[in-house]
């Protein structure tokens, strides 16, 4: 009897239990022996009671229906009471079978829905992202840090230092503000200027230093941007995208 215990959990109601009993008999619903079914059904209810399970009211209603059917069949047909009610109430046997057939159909439909549910769970829709055809953004190049600039300028200073061996003394004819104007003009002409090009015309250390200070000043004023487009590549100087602050506005100390 212990085996019943597991199965009770599964039944959704009396109709479900009846369908299970019919399936166990391996007969068609239309050909089932309802009397035998009634006996089986009531045996199950007994087991339920034995196991102290709470028996839902629906099971009891079904049990009484089955008992009613069974009681009718105990009498031979010719001895059955012919009350007028025969016409008004349908044959309870037919009514029950109709109900069972209907319930069975929906149970099958539920199984098909479940199959679709699982199928849908495993279906992946194609959701492409919208292709982006807008003008390729000027890819934000990694900005060169102050240290990158200092490294670059020291390399240039080294080169310049090697060049002027003559040890001639020049007067300081370069000012930072002058160099700022030169730089602004240079960058305005070309879109991007290489770092080394800034110093190509420099003749001595102080000119390099002036140019470099002018560059730093322009970066500080957000007029220019120094970027290193590729790793270990040369630093490039471009104009800042924002509306530039007029050079005259800021006081430039020499």
């Amino acid at each position, binding site marked *: 009897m212990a085996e019943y215990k597991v199965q009770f959990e599964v039944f959704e*109601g009396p109709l479900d239990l009846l369908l299970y009993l019919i399936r166990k008999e391996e007969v068609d619903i239309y050909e089932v022996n309802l009397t035998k079914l009634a006996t089986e059904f009531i045996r199950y209810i007994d087991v339920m009671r034995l196991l102290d399970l709470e028996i839902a009211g629906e099971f009891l209603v079904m*049990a009484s229906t089955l008992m009613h059917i069974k009681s009718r069949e105990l009498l031979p047909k010719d001895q059955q009471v012919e009350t007028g009610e025969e016409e008004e109430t349908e044959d309870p046997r037919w009514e029950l079978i109709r109900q069972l057939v209907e319930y069975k159909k929906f149970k099958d439909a*539920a199984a098909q829905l479940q199959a679709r549910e699982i199928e849908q769970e495993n279906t992946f829709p194609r959701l492409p992202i919208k292709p982006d055809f807008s003008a390729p953004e000027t890819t934000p190049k990694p900005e060169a840090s102050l240290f990158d600039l200092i490294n670059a300028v020291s390399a240039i200073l080294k080169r310049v230092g090697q060049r002027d061996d003559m040890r001639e003394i020049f007067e300081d004819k370069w000012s930072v503000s002058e160099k700022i104007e030169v730089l602004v003009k240079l960058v305005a002409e070309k879109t991007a200027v290489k770092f080394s090009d800034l110093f190509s015309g420099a003749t001595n250390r102080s000119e390099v230093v002036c140019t470099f200070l002018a560059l730093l000043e322009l970066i500080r004023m957000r007029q220019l941007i120094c970027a290193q487009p590729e790793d270990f590549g040369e630093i490039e100087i471009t104009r800042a995208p924002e509306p530039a602050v007029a050079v005259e506005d800021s006081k430039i100390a020499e």
Partner: protein
Amino acid sequence: MELKFILESILFSAQKPLSPKELRDLLNAAAEHGDAAKPFKKTKEEDLTAALEQLQKDHEAAQRSYRLACVAGSWQFASQPEFAPWLVALVGVKARPPRLSQPALETLAIISYRQPITRAEVEQVRGVAVDGVMQTLLERGLVEQVGRAEVVGRPMTYGTTPAFLEYFGLRSLEDLPAAEELRRLPVTKPEALLTIDPGLATAPPEQVTLEEAEKPAEPGPAPQA
């Protein structure tokens, strides 16, 4: 150029499922831009649907790993379920509410085929109360109140929602399996052949232990002090 291939190209690149109406609007918009698209400007929705169905059949016949799916009236390319293991590896498991329980599925099946239907009618078919289950289905948005029945008490009637179609990947309610048979109340012919031979009592009535059987059947008024 064939209409179905135009639709195929649109759906292949579409970001969301498209209905025949939306597709028609697209054809019209394309006709504004160039002469090549002009001939398809006045395409009717029926022709669109027919072309989509043809395209769907073509893909089915080709047995590709994807198909043209129509869910709740909108069309979209989707993978076949058997390729899920690889797609899960690619994009991860789909976020979906937990699967429906057996009672919920049964209740939903009855509602989907017999809508609009009252709660009492559902209970009649299932033979058990459905209050809790109905609550779940309403909360998940798979069914909704659609009106009131013209009977005593004017009880609420229920029907399925578009979310129901989406959840099960159905094109429409017509797409439900064996819809015709289950929707109309199957007045399965009242057969003459009944369970037992007429006129005969049940073969040896293997007696039900009556005392036990009667107890559940009758309340049994026991006048005991």
